[in-house]
């Protein structure tokens, strides 16, 4: 009897937990006005604010799913979604090749530079300094938006080999590069400038070479073919870039945004 009691107790707890968990879940019910936006984790702060604003103004719920640009793309290929906002337009190109994109709008220009510890104790000023023996460098893998940019830019400057010799680690995303420097595990790395305000123990060095670089890196929002509600999705995409709506929020968070049109329903 006792064993039966334990079993029933377990099943009871199981049922209760499931109920508490799922009573507010809608399993992709189409009658609820809702959009799924898959967005690069580095853009979390502004996009969250914009999504909340849109929910208030237009009454459509925006479910935000955060992750690395490439990882999100892999997921979308398999499971589909409404909107995709990676940190780098190259992912949109890849998605377009796969026939996944219905429409896309550029959101923000990202410019790269060197992240260093606050106060610049090691006096790091140029790309050349990254080849110094006393500077521990961290860069992102080629698979990350910023990593691709970093490798190309260093190659063009003829410094790639020299920098790679002194590299202490390669990491997967731009956030990890910034994190390493912010925690003091590395002395310098190459990141998007928009990240800097979030990392309090670090500062940013502009690299003139980068600004003239032909590599135009753009965060781009795309409406996906797999969306069952493309009109609604496009409306949010327009909201996200509208000069008096989303663009304003991006600018507040330190992103360099192209001047879009004013918002109209």
């Amino acid at each position, binding site marked *: 009897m006792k064993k039966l009691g334990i079993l029933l107790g377990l099943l009871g707890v199981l049922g209760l937990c*499931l109920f508490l*968990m799922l009573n507010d879940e809608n399993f992709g019910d189409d009658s609820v006005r809702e959009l799924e936006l898959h967005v690069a984790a580095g853009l979390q702060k502004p996009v969250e604010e914009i999504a909340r604003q849109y929910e208030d103004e237009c009454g459509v719920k925006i479910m935000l799913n955060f992750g690395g640009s490439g990882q999100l793309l892999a997921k979308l290929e398999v499971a589909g979604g409404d909107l995709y906002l990676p940190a780098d337009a190259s992912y949109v190109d890849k998605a377009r090749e796969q026939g996944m994109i219905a429409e896309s709008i550029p959101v923000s220009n990202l410019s790269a530079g060197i992240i260093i510890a606050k106060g610049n104790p090691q006096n790091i000023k140029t790309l050349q300094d990254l080849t110094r023996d006393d500077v521990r460098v961290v860069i992102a893998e080629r698979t990350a938006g910023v990593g691709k940019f970093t490798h190309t830019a260093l190659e063009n400057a003829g410094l790639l080999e020299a920098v790679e010799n002194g590299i202490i680690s390669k990491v997967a995303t731009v956030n990890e590069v910034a994190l390493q420097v912010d925690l003091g595990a590395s002395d310098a790395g190459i990141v998007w400038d928009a990240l800097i305000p979030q990392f309090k123990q670090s500062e940013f060095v502009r690299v003139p070479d980068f600004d003239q670089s032909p590599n135009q890196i753009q965060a781009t929002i795309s409406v996906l073919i797999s969306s069952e509600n493309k009109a609604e999705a496009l409306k949010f995409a327009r909201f996200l870039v509208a000069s008096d709506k989303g663009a304003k929020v991006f600018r507040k968070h330190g992103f360099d945004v192209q001047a879009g049109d004013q918002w109209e329903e």
Partner: protein
Amino acid sequence: MRDSIRNSKNNSSNFGISGWFGAWLGISLFFYLALIVLLIVADVWYVLAAYGDSPSGVAEMLDWENLWDSVKLTFLSCTVSAILAVLIAVPIGYLLSRYRFFGRSVIDAILDIPVVLPPLVIGLSLLILFNNFPPKILGWGVDSIDGYLSHIGMRITNTKLAVIVAQFTVAAAFAIRMVKATFDQIDSRSEQVAMTVGASRGRAFFDVVLPQSYRGIAAAGTLAWARALGEFGPILVFAGATKGRTEVLSTSVYLEISTGNINGAVIISLLMIALAMITILTVRVFTEKGAGYDLHR
């Protein structure tokens, strides 16, 4: 966990330990314990330093309401996954422990796959399984499990159910290992005795084996719960990191790190440690009592 495997036998001794042997045991314990404790101390230190800089800043560092949602979902999903893991681990563990059959070692190896696979691969595989399988060429009229479920208004991918599926997949593998080890420790002669006096195999299991293995099973459940708590990769890929829907604490940590909020990430991590300690100790206290009652009856 050590307690659980020893079952009814009390292996701890009251003899003192000294000399090189004692030093060896002591130093080993000290070294590893120090590592773990220092990890936590460093985290606390890091947050306290930030708190000293600006006390109000730390309070504003986290969206507490959102965090509460995450805590709730974490606790509920881990509990569901752990219970499901135990329910499946007990029969499988017993099967593997007591029976020798054709293909057993292959099955044994298959059951270890969730333990050895990189977490992201598990997530990706789940994603493919639920969204691209069975393939259209089989001509079954549906092209995916989720596609079929959508006919009855259900979906797994990107929902809270996906969190459970992801946690369960990994946690069950660990629970099975542990339950099997528990059954292995129990002398199968006790069942045989019961069976020679007329009990069926099932009766013998429920009346003889199960009462001796409560602690081991509870420990397996605890381990499964803890694994589910730490689960991250599969959840990120299969359930997504959607705030207010599929965000569990490990996801919260990831999201905070993504935005450079290291203090927030550390605070959540400390919260996870507290949650885990409380749960593990609670289960421990309950089962010590329960098992004691059962064994001395």
